[in-house]
């Protein structure tokens, strides 16, 4: 289509804007190999000293394991809680269903700074501050809406005739769920898990309100670190975080590719 050919000035403009969009993410890669004591670009010499420093930083390492445990626990709980909820939302009819769905996904609409404060005040009286249970619960508040949405869409677009076919062939309701509905939901579960994992692993604002010296997550420790000194250590951590995100996305792509293969 001739008239859709983008003119050269437009292409240059788009390229510049893309550079702007990606600059901060790209820049952390060279900076992480800086040999300098302070943040400067270009570095005066290259080294891997900041990676070494990162792996010797016990605070960061501890925070990483906390984040990882937290994200895994939150992901598993999100799926276990959201699958029955999404099934109820898509397979049953009752008064007020729409309202409940909106209520359950509403936490996404609230700014995290407000939600963080609100949770802080309530959790303080429950004694949940700076505890793993408190962090898990707070993260579930934000991951469940994502999981519910993804799974409800996935269940809603499933061919209901497959469940009906199973029933006419003699399968009881529970058998239909475990042998037809759930296997067909696999791609949705993979997508929802990845989303929940990334949201939980990267969550920083709400977590900032709930962590303390006793327990802290990696994003919160990175935030604290940058707030005090912005040296290339954070660049090294950022590179690893970006690679982790990429890894999760690739796993999803693999699984979803396979998933799509047997859905369509």
């Amino acid at each position, binding site marked *: 289509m001739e008239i859709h050919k983008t003119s050269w000035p437009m292409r240059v403009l*788009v390229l510049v804007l893309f550079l702007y*969009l990606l600059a901060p993410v790209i*820049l952390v890669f060279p900076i992480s190999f800086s040999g300098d004591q302070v943040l400067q*670009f*270009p570095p005066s010499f290259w080294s891997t000293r900041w990676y070494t420093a990162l792996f010797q930083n016990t605070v960061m390492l501890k925070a990483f394991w906390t984040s990882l445990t937290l994200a895994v626990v939150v992901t598993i709980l999100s799926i276990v809680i959201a699958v029955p909820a999404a099934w109820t939302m898509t397979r049953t009819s009752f008064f007020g269903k729409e309202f409940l769905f909106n209520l359950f996904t509403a936490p996404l609409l609230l700014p995290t700074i*407000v939600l963080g*404060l609100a949770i802080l005040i309530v959790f303080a009286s429950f004694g949940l501050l700076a505890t793993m249970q408190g962090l898990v619960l707070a993260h579930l508040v934000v991951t469940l809406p994502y999981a519910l949405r993804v799974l409800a869409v996935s269940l809603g677009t499933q061919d209901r005739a497959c469940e009906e076919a199973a029933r006419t062939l003699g399968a009881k309701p529970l058998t239909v769920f475990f042998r037809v509905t759930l296997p067909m939901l696999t791609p949705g579960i993979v997508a929802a898990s990845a989303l929940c994992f990334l949201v939980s692993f*990267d969550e920083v*604002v709400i977590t900032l309100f709930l962590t303390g010296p006793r327990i802290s997550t990696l994003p919160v420790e990175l935030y604290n670190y940058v707030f005090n000194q912005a040296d290339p250590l954070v660049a090294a951590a950022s590179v690893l*975080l970006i690679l982790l995100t990429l890894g999760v996305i690739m796993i999803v792509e693999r699984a979803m590719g396979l998933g799509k293969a047997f859905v369509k």
Partner: protein
Amino acid sequence: MNAAAETAPRTWRSGELAIVLLLPIALINAIGFILPVLNLARYSFNQSTAGGGIADVFTWENWTGLLRDPFYLELIFNSVWISLAITLTTLVVSYPIALYLHRSTGSWKTFLTVLVISPLLTSAVVRTYGWIALLTDNGPVLSFLRYVGLPAPSLMFNIKGVFIGLTEILMPYMILALMAGFGRLDPRVEEAARTLGATPSRTFWKIILPLTLPGIALGCLLCFVLAVSSFITPKLMGGGRVFLLATEIYDQAIVTLNWPLASTLSILVLIVFGAALWAYSVVLRRLD
């Protein structure tokens, strides 16, 4: 007789089953969302006492105090106005990318879309750090400006840096909203305009822009709301010298321990949200 009724699926009517299956999510929603938000509204009428204590009374003090204090009036005004400016800038820098993406096809489009979405999946701390690295005094941007002999104003710990960084951080949201809006832009409409003799620029102003206004409105709403409540970027790039609503909420809650005031500011943010949503619905109605 309608066709939908003919294929209406059989559904469970057993209410008990629904209750059991929804109980866990309802509990978490109640404990982690409804209760905290109601409590927050209540706290904005509590009294903060010396030493971080809280008196469980009902007073309008926080609200009246807020509206009488020039510091907070300026804070609110600045937050809204800076967020508006950031939203507008984000729109201007996102529109060409969205349009280009809309017109690309195949794997090139997929690749570019992934590039646009990928920053969303990267931690806000990481991206803000990237901007600090870019804009710091010995960073590439200022080094380059100095090298070519241009003025190199400090971009860290002031509103300029926050502005630049936040604009970039909001871009993916804007691009996605715009692309959703572009869905209703039929390429044949453009072709029709061109065959009828319109120049590319006239086609843009008369055809493309009007048709994509709903997407623009949605993107602006989204970005404004995110800008008003953004915390990480202003806090880290402002270095405690940029005061906005979100940073003040955090400081009041964690540093000053004045939870009633923090709650009042939070409710204020929600009121600003409501106003933005109202403005959006008015714009949308006008467009229809």
